[in-house]
């Protein structure tokens, strides 16, 4: 009726390569890393004795958010050594999510599987490594596979579940959560943008005014995506903190 041609999903994820093997997602990832590094360099350049302003204030607020909102809430004081890793994770994911709503870019780099997969595998390696380092190989796997306080007979049931949930489901859900949230948001924005465009250009002039409805929805969803971009970065980081905390201190 509206002659709405929705492009296949591959179409809205396809980007020409700017340089050999460097496409938009790669550019966004590199830009995210560069922006973070530049912001932190500018922040460290400022005189630290004065009250922080501008970039330094921003960087310090982020650091304090990660310290107080993520590390202290999940790992406690012992986990403060993990702050730099969690901070870079948070900042990188946020800066990869944010282009989803920035005009011209309009593509969250995390809506492609590559970056979430890389990060969650990295997190998997790190929390298993931290657990093995702190409790020894046997101790770590004992605390993971045979959690204390479970009746002996139940181990037949608990151990496979724990193995699957800790070793397989955790990185998978971490990866899929970030990827699917961002991809769903991206598809939603594309859908409403296409809908309002189709209505604005409808051959039947009666339909043209109705184009503002999906447009308002688009604006609302863009605001929602701002929240989602932040929330997904926060959730990825806090789950990482929980996993690392659990691997390092199994009694908690």
């Amino acid at each position: 009726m509206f002659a709405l041609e929705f492009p296949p999903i591959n179409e809205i994820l396809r980007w020409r390569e700017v340089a050999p093997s460097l496409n938009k997602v790669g550019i966004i990832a590199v830009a995210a890393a560069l922006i973070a590094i530049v912001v932190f360099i500018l922040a460290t350049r400022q005189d630290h004795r004065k009250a922080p302003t501008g970039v330094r204030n921003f960087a310090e607020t982020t650091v304090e958010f990660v310290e107080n909102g993520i590390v202290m809430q999940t790992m406690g004081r012992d986990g403060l050594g993990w702050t730099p890793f969690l901070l870079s994770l948070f900042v990188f994911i946020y800066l990869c999510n944010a282009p989803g709503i920035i005009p011209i870019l309009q593509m969250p780099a995390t809506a492609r599987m590559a970056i979430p997969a890389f990060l969650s595998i990295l997190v998997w390696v790190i929390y298993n490594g931290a657990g093995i380092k702190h409790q020894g190989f046997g101790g770590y796997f004992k605390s993971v596979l045979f959690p204390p306080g479970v009746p002996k007979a139940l181990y037949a049931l608990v151990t496979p579940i724990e193995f699957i949930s800790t070793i397989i489901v955790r990185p998978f859900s971490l990866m899929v959560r970030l990827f699917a949230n961002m991809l769903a948001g991206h598809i939603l924005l594309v859908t409403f943008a296409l809908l309002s465009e189709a209505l604005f250009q409808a051959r039947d002039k009666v339909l043209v005014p109705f184009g503002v409805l999906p447009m308002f929805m688009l604006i609302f969803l863009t605001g929602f995506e701002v929240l989602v971009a932040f929330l997904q970065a926060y959730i990825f980081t806090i789950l990482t903190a929980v996993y690392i905390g659990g691997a390092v201190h199994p009694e908690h």
Partner: protein
Amino acid sequence: MLTAVITHRGENSVQVKLVGQSTGLVTPKIEAEEGQDMGPNPIAPEGKELLWGGLSFVVMAVAIRYFLFPKLKKGMDDRYAGIRADHESAEATTAAARGDVAEYEKALVAVRAEAAAKVDAARQTLDSERQAAINELNSRIAARRSEADAALSAAREANRSQITAAVSAVVTRATELSVGRAPDAAVVERAIADAMAGGSR
């Protein structure tokens, strides 16, 4: 072994070709066309993106972990320590000032007590002097008054004796004239004393 290649052209025409596996002519061509159209797989991670994303994250994480974060954190800690030291020194200064104020107030109290004592002493001497003066004055007044009283009573006594003498003379004369005989002086005197006591009432 044969492979059936079904091509769909136009409205209703379906072409079916049976191709031997060895020829392998048709299949790659179709795949190539599809590959051009389809774009990337929406789920599978792409190698180049994995490479770029992973590389940039690792570079960033290393830079933050080993250079930027420690520097920033050190600055923050320095500033917080500085603020805390400033706070403490300010508190020490406040305490010192408070001690000074307490000392000053103590001195003030002492001075005030001294002043009050002096004022009291002065007031006491003043009071005693005044009392002495008043007493002296009062005694002088009392002496004067007793002198005057004595003079007055002496005069009154003299008057009274004169009057009594006069009246007794008169009464004696009058009685002498009327009775012809001089009355007893004691009787006259008693009568006069009675009359005067009654008159002076």
